[in-house]
């Protein structure tokens, strides 16, 4: 009997799949940041409001009443019913609360479930570049292959159907879009969404539409992808409570799709997550029932700050298109000739202002910064004054 003993490399317990995924560019920057004190951060991806009191109060009350147990895998029926009402009210969509809605642990879980439920090995998923940091790794972890479609400033970072079509192959399974966009703040014009819907029908593709920022749009109406003609059956709609209701830490979201897809996703969800935390579900019910006033209050606040930040950015020479959604601006740093990582690092060390380098969101995010305006007016003014000084110094 012969044993061959191989000396294991340090990382040998880690699967190849995980090894092949690069750590988030944001994470790397985070480590650098913790070494600097007194930083004004425009690098945060969450509201600066805390969850409205009526929602927190409802959660506290549910705990007092002893709601501390598991719920159905799908989530509390009452929450799904409220969601069905919400989708009907806002988008004229009719989803069955018992078969077509699944409550997830944040929209992030929803995305993971959707990808794992539909992808066979090497299936391709089309995504915009730049896009949210989790899209590429989540596709890879689900065994798929991300196909990035460049989007650009000249086109307000909209993904266009004419750029997608030539990249569709026999392996293409789905188109994954997330608008309003993190990191660019871009929204999709209705006509462009219609064209993408036509493509999806022509090639029989699923569209995974991440609409976590749906309620944060300014001066336009949000179009829910599933509400486009014929798209309800071919759309996996991802939503959540984090952004609109300032509930990031609650980790509560939802997936809406046809019964077959929801059943497939619930299979994974029931074995991996079981159910979303009941307290967060209780809070979400209250949010849907009575949250509109607070949403509007916060949205208005963001809108004012958005305009201010865009103006200040353009004034200091960092040209920035007008983002009509989410709470990000995505200015170009071309005039400095620096890479986005270099710019962000220097800005942090010299002026103590944190922004996220655009390259963290894909190859085509290079040359840009993500600046979040979910922070106080005073912070925006101070940070932009510092950035102005910085740009003046390094302008080519």
């Amino acid at each position, binding site marked *: 009997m012969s044993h061959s003993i191989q000396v294991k490399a340090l990382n040998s317990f880690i699967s190849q799949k995980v090894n092949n995924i690069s750590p*988030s560019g944001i994470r790397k920057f985070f480590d650098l940041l913790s070494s600097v004190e007194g930083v004004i951060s425009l690098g945060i991806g969450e509201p600066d409001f805390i969850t409205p009191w009526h929602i927190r109060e409802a959660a506290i009350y549910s705990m007092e009443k002893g709601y501390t147990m598991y719920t159905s895998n799908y989530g509390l029926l009452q929450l799904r019913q409220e969601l069905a009402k919400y989708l009907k009210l806002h988008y004229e969509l009719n989803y069955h609360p018992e078969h077509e809605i699944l409550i997830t642990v944040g929209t992030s879980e929803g995305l993971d479930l959707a990808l794992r439920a539909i992808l066979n090995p090497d299936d391709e998923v089309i995504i915009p570049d730049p896009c949210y*940091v989790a899209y590429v790794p989540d596709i890879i972890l689900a065994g798929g292959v991300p196909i990035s479609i460049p989007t650009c400033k000249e086109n307000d970072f909209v993904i266009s159907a004419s750029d997608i079509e030539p990249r569709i192959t026999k392996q293409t399974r789905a188109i994954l879009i997330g608008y309003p966009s993190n990191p660019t703040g871009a929204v999709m014009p209705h006509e462009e969404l219609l064209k993408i819907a036509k493509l999806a029908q022509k090639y029989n593709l699923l569209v995974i539409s991440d609409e976590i920022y749906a309620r944060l749009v300014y001066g336009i109406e949000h179009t829910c992808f599933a509400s486009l003609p014929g798209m309800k059956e071919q759309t996996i709609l991802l939503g959540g409570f984090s952004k609109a209701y300032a509930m990031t830490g609650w980790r509560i979201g939802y997936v809406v799709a046809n019964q077959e897809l929801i059943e497939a996703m619930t299979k994974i969800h029931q074995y991996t997550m079981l159910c979303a935390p009941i307290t967060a579900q209780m809070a979400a019910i209250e949010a849907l029932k009575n949250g509109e006033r607070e949403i509007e209050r916060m949205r*208005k606040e963001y809108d004012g700050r958005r305009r201010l930040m865009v103006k200040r950015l353009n004034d200091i020479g960092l040209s920035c298109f007008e983002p009509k959604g989410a709470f990000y601006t995505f200015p170009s740093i071309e005039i400095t000739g620096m890479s986005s990582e270099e710019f962000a690092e220097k800005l942090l060390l010299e002026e103590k202002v944190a922004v996220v380098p655009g390259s963290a969101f894909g190859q085509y995010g290079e040359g840009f910064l993500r600046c979040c305006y979910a922070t106080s*007016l005073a912070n925006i003014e101070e940070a932009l004054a510092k950035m102005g000084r910085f740009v003046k110094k390094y302008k080519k």
Partner: protein
Amino acid sequence: MEQIFEILEQNARATPEQIATMVGMPVSEVEKIIKQAEEDKTIIKYKTTIDWAKLGKGEVWALIEVKVTPQRDVGFDIIAERIYQFPQVYSAYLVSGAYDLAVLVRAKNMQEISSFVTEKLAPLEQVQSTVTHFLLKRYKENGEILQLPKEVGRLPITP
């Protein structure tokens, strides 16, 4: 236009330029609206909310319920005016319910409030009765929560 006032109500020091950018109007237009509002007293005055307790200022505040007899033709207005003219009166409201006027009084000490009530307010002919509630602690004022708990920090960078 309402937005201009909402911004100013939150932060009286917001500049016309900031406001103009935030609401998407020309600066001159915003300046005009503000000036007009100042003139017609839509904007009554610019104030600062101060937590006096922090400065160790021992002020005394009291909420006084006043029951009055309304007068023919003028109702409560004349008696209200007689009361709110006193400099100790910080706010005065006509209210529905068990009493008529709610009067918020601010004074240097309890003695001053006491003499205001016994010498000025209670003896008024139309005043039937008063109930004085001294303020023990301020939690929220003008929509602002005082003595906020330490802020829970967000992580400086999140996806």
